[in-house]
């Protein structure tokens, strides 16, 4: 896209923003300008400081140094009061958080009106509010049922309510934090079409993203953050994927190269498995995992991936259908039995389900094998043996920590994932179940995870890779199946698939139509 805003007025300026959390500098001397009608993409990896920067803008955090300047209507730029969401709203800044800030027990209309009226008022003026909103909806195309409770709305509708919240307050700057994280590719397209329309009407938009393709397709200008500092700020027209990726990561990208796998015999077989109810349920799922292959499971978050992982881990007994592992019927086996039978579980939420934060690194490494003779004698734990194993694993898996006795919760996300990898992959499991294994990790940790998964495959294990990241799936998987509303498609060889086909299947349309 070209920049239509050469002559436009600057509506927002961040000037030398610095924010530290203890030792960590989340933002270091970041300056940004935003013009009327402009769509700015704020690009960066997880932990690059994008969200922190926007939270400072919106007053959730107070910057240690620097200031936020905003154009008040008609006059020039003036300084915004720090640390006050109220002041930010008054100045015309609207924010759509990654995790929606909506009260589920109220209607869409109530949520939008909330906070716009004097709290001491004895009545709430709904009629004019509804009228203004209906006009806004007609103009912007952000259709939502105003009287429906938020809890009944879809994710896309909730996001539209969030945007309407900002527009209802006559926002001049709209900030969206990872707006497409919860959307299908098609829903994302609709969102960006709406944003372009709003920008054409003069709204200034910042959207935070780490997805290069959408940044290139939908922004006028892109600012890249890395390690809390702004490393680039340039018109999108001058960018290509490769350049942006390198700016974001800070070095040339070496992609993990997958050699062709050599699949063996069927290892894990699910036959007509139905489990759970509601949004995260499985219906008639058939799945066959061979030894020596990586089977990717693609899908938009919340389509049954969590339940699939729970069934395979033995955390949920299917209502019907069977599951066999290496020929043995494991339907209804509990989690301990599945681990004993050779399943490695890399959980989706590593902080909650992967480690016990208050326990030490060595205890966390031993936690799935405490009943094995090497770790206990006469019912008592052998701490010295556990420590020794821990020291070996810390070395082998390059876990950065103070030592085997440090508390696991003090480690970074990447190192916590390395604990999980070391614990589950070291016993050489038959099946590896990796749910969102690289979510939230930086490039280094991600490539480490990828190498470990490929190594497990090459030694003959079967790997199930559940991911929302299509690039990751295409790079690692030998075959890919798509999960949509609890139903799993047949798995096709990766070579026969492309992103478009997968995107359509993720949205519930069969690939043949494309």
């Amino acid at each position: 896209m070209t920049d239509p805003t050469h002559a436009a007025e600057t509506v927002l300026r961040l000037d030398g923003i610095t924010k530290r959390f203890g030792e960590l500098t989340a933002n270091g001397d970041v300056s940004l300008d935003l013009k009327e009608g402009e769509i700015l993409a704020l690009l960066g990896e997880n932990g690059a400081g994008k969200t922190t920067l926007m939270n400072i803008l919106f007053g959730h955090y107070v910057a240690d140094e620097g200031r936020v300047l905003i154009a008040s209507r008609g006059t020039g730029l003036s300084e915004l009061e720090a640390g006050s969401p109220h002041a930010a709203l008054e100045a015309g800044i609207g924010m759509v958080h990654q995790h929606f800030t909506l009260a589920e027990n109220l209607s869409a209309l109530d949520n939008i009106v909330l906070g716009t009226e004097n709290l001491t008022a004895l009545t709430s003026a709904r009629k004019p509010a509804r009228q203004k909103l209906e006009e806004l909806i007609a103009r912007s195309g952000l259709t939502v049922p105003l009287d429906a409770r938020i809890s009944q709305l879809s994710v896309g509708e909730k996001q539209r309510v969030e945007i309407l919240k900002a527009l209802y307050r006559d926002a001049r700057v709209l900030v969206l934090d990872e707006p497409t994280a919860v959307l299908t590719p098609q829903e994302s397209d609709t969102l960006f079409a709406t944003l372009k329309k709003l920008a054409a009407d003069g709204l200034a938009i910042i959207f935070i993203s780490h997805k290069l393709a959408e940044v290139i397709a939908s922004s006028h200008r892109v600012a890249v953050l890395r390690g809390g500092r702004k490393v680039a700020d340039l018109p999108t027209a001058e960018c290509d994927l490769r350049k942006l990726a390198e700016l974001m990561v800070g070095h040339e990208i070496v992609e993990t190269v997958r050699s062709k796998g050599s699949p063996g015999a069927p290892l894990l077989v699910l036959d007509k498995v139905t489990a759970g109810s509601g949004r995260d349920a499985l219906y008639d799922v058939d799945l066959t995992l061979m030894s020596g292959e990586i089977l990717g499971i693609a899908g938009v978050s919340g389509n049954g991936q969590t339940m699939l992982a729970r069934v395979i881990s033995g955390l949920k007994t299917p209502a019907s259908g069977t599951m066999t592992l290496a020929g043995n019927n494991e339907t209804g086996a509990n989690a301990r039995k599945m681990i004993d039978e050779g399943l490695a579980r890399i959980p989706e939420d590593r902080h909650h389900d992967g480690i016990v934060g208050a326990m030490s690194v060595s205890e966390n490494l031993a936690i799935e094998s405490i009943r094995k003779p090497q770790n206990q004698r006469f019912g008592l734990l052998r701490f010295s043996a556990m420590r020794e194993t821990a020291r070996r694993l810390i070395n082998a898996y390059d876990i950065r920590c103070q030592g085997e006795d440090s508390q696991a919760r003090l480690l970074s996300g990447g190192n916590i994932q390395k604990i999980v990898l070391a614990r589950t992959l070291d016993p050489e499991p038959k099946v590896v179940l990796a749910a969102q294994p690289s979510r939230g990790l930086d490039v280094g940790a991600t490539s480490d995870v990828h190498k470990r998964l490929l190594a497990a495959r090459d030694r003959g294990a079967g790997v199930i890779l559940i991911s929302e990241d299509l690039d990751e799936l295409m790079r690692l998987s030998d075959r890919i199946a798509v999960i949509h509303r609890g139903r799993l498609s047949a798995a096709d060889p990766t070579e026969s698939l492309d992103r478009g086909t997968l995107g359509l299947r993720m949205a519930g349309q069969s690939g043949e139509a494309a």
Partner: protein
Amino acid sequence: MIEIIDILFSANFWAAALRIATPLIFGVIGALICERAGVLNLGIEGIFTAGAMAGWMAVWLGAGLWGGVLVAAFAGAVFGLIHAILTVPLGLSQHVSGIGVTLFATSLSYFIYRTALPDVSSPPRIDAFQPLDIPVLSELPFIGPALFQQTPLTFLALFLVLATAYVLYRTPLGLAIQAVGDNPAAVESQGLSVYAIRMGTVVAGSAIMALGGAFLTMSAFDAFFFGMVNGRGWICIALTVFASWRPGKALIGALLFGAFDAFQVRLQTEVGSFIPGQVFLMMPYILSIAALIVVARRADYPRALLVPYFKGQR
């Protein structure tokens, strides 16, 4: 059997039910408001005691009946503020803080009472609220004696039910209270202060709770004595769940409990000769537990109940 039906159709019985329900109405409305904002207030039992003591003592010292009501509400507000400070900005455990407030408020009330009256053996009485004889209405058959021969505090309780429902469902403030109990981030993102709304609600709710205590000393027993609150606060916590956090249902729940209690007293005199009295005393509690089991299984808890909110953390 005939006797039981006679009881249910006597105006006297329903008048007693409403009288017994009055302190519970105050209590459950107060507890409901706090919980709607996301704060469980287990200080209720102590706040009842504080309200009972403060109201009684103010009247005894010559403040007048309505002066006593104000003093009682103020005492409740003070203990509510303690609970609010501990649980909202400091984010401490609402259970621990609530129990602490109950112990503190109860003991302090007894202490002040004992210090002021070291030597009395029988608690001094005050000239309490008298039933209002509303002309015309109180002369209606059945309804008149049942509904319109109550003291002013009962009418205040009924008015508070209506007022609470109106505020909660019809005003911008009520919207904010409902939202802050569901998702505080929604309130903050709209520029309102989570702390101010939660603390204000807890203080107001606690003041209303204290009126339940004041009813005991200023309308029911005319005096203050130890142990007089006798678990009424805890009953209100259960009734809040029973009411699904709705003021209308809260009124029904309190009346139901009042009716059970009035019924067991009368049943005791009818058939009490061969069943021990304790069985009858148990009855309203057992029936309440049964009702709670039926209702609470489907209870729609405020999602942010018990969850402290810290600014900038999500």
